[in-house]
């Protein structure tokens, strides 16, 4: 079980691609990677989760923490490419109303 994240900066926007399974074991490395992201005023961050095939509540906690820090520091976080399973997780927890989330389908439609 592995998890990786790559970042790419393009037109003042930061893109992050997360891949793998996010659980209790892989969560700490994701937390470290996200904590290392320097958020500047108005920075837009888009995290692509389309390659995330499993996520538990620990993973959820990391995204919430990142979202809260970004909001405090006036950055913007958006999660895209969520599978229906992941989307359900964000819906049940009420986080989909709070955070900016795009599902798999919408991303496809936009293409």
């Amino acid at each position, binding site marked *: 079980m592995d998890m990786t994240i790559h970042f790419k900066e393009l037109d003042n926007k930061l893109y992050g691609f997360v891949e793998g399974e996010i659980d209790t074991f892989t969560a700490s490395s994701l937390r470290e990677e996200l904590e290392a992201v320097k958020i500047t005023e108005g920075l837009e961050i888009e995290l692509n989760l389309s390659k995330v095939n499993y996520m538990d509540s620990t993973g959820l906690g990391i995204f*919430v923490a990142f979202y809260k820090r970004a909001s405090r520091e006036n950055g913007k976080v958006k999660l895209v490419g969520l599978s229906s399973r992941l989307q359900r997780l964000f819906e049940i927890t009420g986080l989909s109303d709070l955070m900016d989330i795009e599902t798999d389908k919408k991303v496809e439609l936009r293409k």
Partner: protein
Amino acid sequence: MLKQLESQYEKILSDYMSDQTEKNLYIAQNFTRQLIQKNISPEDVVNIHKNAVGKIFPDRMVEDQPAYDFLIEVMVHYGMAHREHQSLLQIQAEYEMEMKIATNIQKTLLKTVVPQLSSIDIGMISIPIRKMNGDYVHFLYNREDYLSVAVTDVVGKGVPAALCMSMVKYGLETLEYAYKDPSYVLEVINRVIEKGVDDSMFVSMFYGCLDIQNSIFSYASAGHEPALHYSAKHGEFFSLEAKGLLLGVLSDSKYSYNEILLEDNDIVVMMTDGVTEFRARDDLNSREVITSLIVENKHVSAQHLCNLLYKQIEKIQDFKLSDDFTVVILKK
């Protein structure tokens, strides 16, 4: 002691040098255990060997002496690493001891007592995946008038989760007469948690309150798995969906109030995501598994039904559950 070991070693080595058999090698292995047990460092072992060789082959030593001394120097660092390892083992043993105490405290502190009421059958099961349980169930009731139940799941496991859970428990206990309003309860507990924990920590809670005389079950949810309502009259399940954010994310979250009428033989099933999430079996719809099991066994007691659910789901997941497992069942 070292002298005694040296003469033992000399004997074993000399036996082996004259007769290189498996048996003599086996004796050496047993001797090693004794060395480890007596905490003899690697450099001391080399020294023992050097002295033994010196006694068995005195004429060789003139040449080999510096090489042995050199090896002893090299082994000193191994010895240091070895001692460090020993002290880590001791620290670990201390941690385990503390962990055990903490687990016991949690068990006492967060012990759920299932109320015994004549008008409603209540069952509960809560099995932690590790030593400390990240799920918690709290019942509040007033004679045969009101029964409320909070099913909670704290994110994260182990000690931090248990500490957070104690906060939830004391929050719930200070509610007194306000416990009958689910959305108010969640708003209060949310404020308590939001102030007290860091950004990545939060709690999901399903809170239901049964007005026993009027058979009205009211509920609200803070980011929790929806409960299930089995209507005996309709012979089908309804998902008790309720909008609401996880506790501890925003200080001013609001929670919607919902209610249903609970009729004779109806069943309400409240659970944590450890019950519905089949990590290794995403081909299965967990809610279908749960509902069909309940329908098939709807005549057994609430407690029995909880036990059956646990056994069944544990089996489906090949006895490798990946999360704390908690179910509360109310049967009218």
